[in-house]
């Protein structure tokens, strides 16, 4: 399954994910034999180009966070049993190409600064025992040869860059609001001068008014630092706002991928259409428009339906959908959809 496409602007590849699989084995019985696996990510292909923001959308349990954690390569250290497959190639600015999927500690260390993450929960992502200066300064201590004073200066200028006061460096995370903490998280991710930042629902824990500020800040930073984002979210309207391209995930697979315009305005996959039709609209005249309601819940990734994962909730499902994984079809240039029957959705 290949869901790649050329972009109109820049075509330099930064991250190239091929056939990524992340399975968490499930043990049972007295002897703790493997009895199954949670197929959190089940074979996805994704390309991120330099300077671009790619939105990753899907409901809870679709595997989008796991993709993000696979990219920053923290799955193996956190869950030693995890089964990884496929490749995540990083094409760094200095010309190095490396598959970082499950890469060991020593060899990964050179690539750690290039790939950083902003976490969803601004409360648990900052160690409550450390001051802001320690939180942001620690990556610098590990990856640069800066002196203590130079590090301090960098920390303070980063704070300023994300819209916080320099004097906040001495404070502890519990003294900040959610939006401020998220800014600290962004400053930490920026500290190593990364090329790509995986933003895992960076605004979903924030108030709506603060969401806009943080999203705007991230867009500014992307311009200033030539960053690429993998922007993970379940809120389509924010993803549409920030992304150049959008990939829609369902049950560990990418079901549709295309430019933000293509996916949001002209969705083709039945699941994407349901998602888009569920976005609340500010215009009351639009209130009567038709919505596609999905029945039931997302199936458990431990026991996926055969063939197409979406067929149990799909309005146009056929008997043949249970047989084979859906073939990927090209709708137009740069817009592909993993459903052979998409033309029937009108």
């Amino acid at each position, binding site marked *: 399954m290949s869901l790649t496409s050329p972009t109109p602007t820049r075509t330099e590849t930064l991250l190239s994910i091929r056939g990524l699989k992340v399975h968490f084995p499930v043990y049972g019985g007295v002897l*703790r034999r493997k009895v199954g696996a949670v197929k959190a990510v089940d074979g996805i292909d994704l390309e991120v180009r330099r300077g671009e923001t790619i939105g990753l959308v899907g409901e809870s349990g679709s595997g989008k966070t796991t993709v993000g*954690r696979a990219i*920053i*390569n*923290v799955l193996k*250290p*956190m869950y*030693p*049993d995890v089964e990884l497959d496929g490749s995540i190639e990083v094409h760094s600015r200095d010309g190095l190409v490396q598959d970082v999927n499950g890469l060991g*500690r020593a060899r*990964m*260390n050179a690539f*750690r*600064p290039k*790939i*950083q*993450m902003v*976490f*969803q*929960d601004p409360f*648990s*992502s*900052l*160690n*409550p*025992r450390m*001051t802001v200066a320690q939180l942001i300064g*620690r*990556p610098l201590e*590990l*990856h640069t040869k800066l002196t203590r004073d130079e590090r301090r200066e960098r920390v303070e200028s980063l704070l300023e860059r994300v819209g916080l006061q320099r004097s906040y460096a*001495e*404070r*502890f995370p*519990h*003294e*900040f*609001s959610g939006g*401020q903490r998220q800014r600290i*998280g962004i400053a*930490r991710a920026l500290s*190593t001068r990364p090329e790509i930042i995986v933003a895992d629902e960076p605004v979903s824990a924030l108030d709506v008014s603060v969401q806009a500020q943080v999203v705007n800040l991230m867009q500014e930073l992307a311009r200033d630092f030539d960053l690429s984002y993998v922007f993970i979210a379940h809120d389509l309207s924010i993803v549409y706002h920030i992304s150049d391209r959008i990939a829609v995930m369902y049950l560990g697979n990418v079901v549709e991928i295309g430019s933000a315009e293509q996916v949001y305005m002209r969705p083709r996959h039945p699941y994407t259409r349901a998602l888009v039709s569920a976005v609340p609209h500010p215009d009351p005249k639009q209130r009567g428009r038709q919505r596609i309601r999905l029945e039931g819940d997302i199936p458990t990734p431990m026991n996926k339906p055969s063939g197409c994962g979406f067929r149990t909730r799909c309005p146009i499902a056929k008997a043949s959908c249970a047989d084979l994984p859906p073939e990927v079809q090209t709708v137009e240039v740069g817009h592909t959809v993993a459903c052979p029957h998409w033309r029937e959705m009108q």
Partner: protein
Amino acid sequence: MSDSPQKPLSVFQRRWKKFKTMKRGWYSFQFLLWSFLLSFFLPLLVGSRAIVAEYEGELVFPVLADLQIPFKESLFPVSSGFLDARDFGFDQRGLVDWRVFQEREHLSGSDNWALLPPYPFGRFESLLGGPTLRDGRAPHPPNHYHWCGTDDRGRDVFARLVYGYRTSLLFGLTVVVFSYAIGTFLGALFGYFGGRFDIVGQRLVEIWSSLPFLYTVIIVAALLRPNLWMLVVILALFSWVGISYYIRGEFLREKSRDYVAASISVGEGRLSIMFRHILPNALTPIISFAPFALVGAISSLVSLDFLGFGLPAPTPSWGELVNQGLSNIYEWHLVAFPLSAMFITLLLVVFVGEAVREAFDPKPFSRLR
């Protein structure tokens, strides 16, 4: 966020502040801390050796021999700093009796003098037949000179109690430090790495924890002559299991939090993640259980001494005194004083523990203040 002018406080600093507001625990802590520090200078306060003495124009400091590291006490019960009595105007070779020396020189009106500790009786010396005891039959009830009487060998009970306090606290604290160090380290490893290592490790820990402590000590005591260090090691090896379970649980919980993922993603080393990032967030069980572990360790030493498997014979210990109280049950001072000393000490430690627990409790309980 309030723009308060004062310096931001870390989590620990806020808890420390709260701990200080718990008066009962705070004063108990102060008393235990200062009395323990003071106990390293005990020979200056309680003991039979003169602090400083002048004989024939020469100054001597006999107490120096006694101000050795207290841990040595159990290894070499009798101090090696030997001053020959014949050099100080006595007829016979032996240790100088500084009380006699002071009395004699005072009566003779010579220039020689000796400054004795305020409570001038040693913890090892038998005072039978001495001028401060009216008859020669030990144990003696308390009198003006011997505040807590003497034991069945005519040794001063007060001196043995205060030196026993030092031994007990020192023993308890080192056992807690060692056992918590082992328990924290292993618990952290099991909790952080998890998986098969954890499952196998936990079964081994269960096997280890089923070894009977007392029998092991009895066997060791039968083969070797136990000293304080050996007892510390044995007890620490048997008491780390409990805290390792708590630390393992804390690590299992903390490991899944995002700040751990964040520190992995910046390339932090594994040991650094475990002990710099996670451990400070997993200290609650360590700090809140430590005072009660101290109570347990002190009680263990008392029990071992009581049973006779503890410290070697002349070492002053509470358990040995309690044992004497049992054999001389009608000598009230041999029962009351050691037991009260132990009771009060343990009670103060429990007060500290109670205040620490309270300081770490996010839901305040105003009753305890």
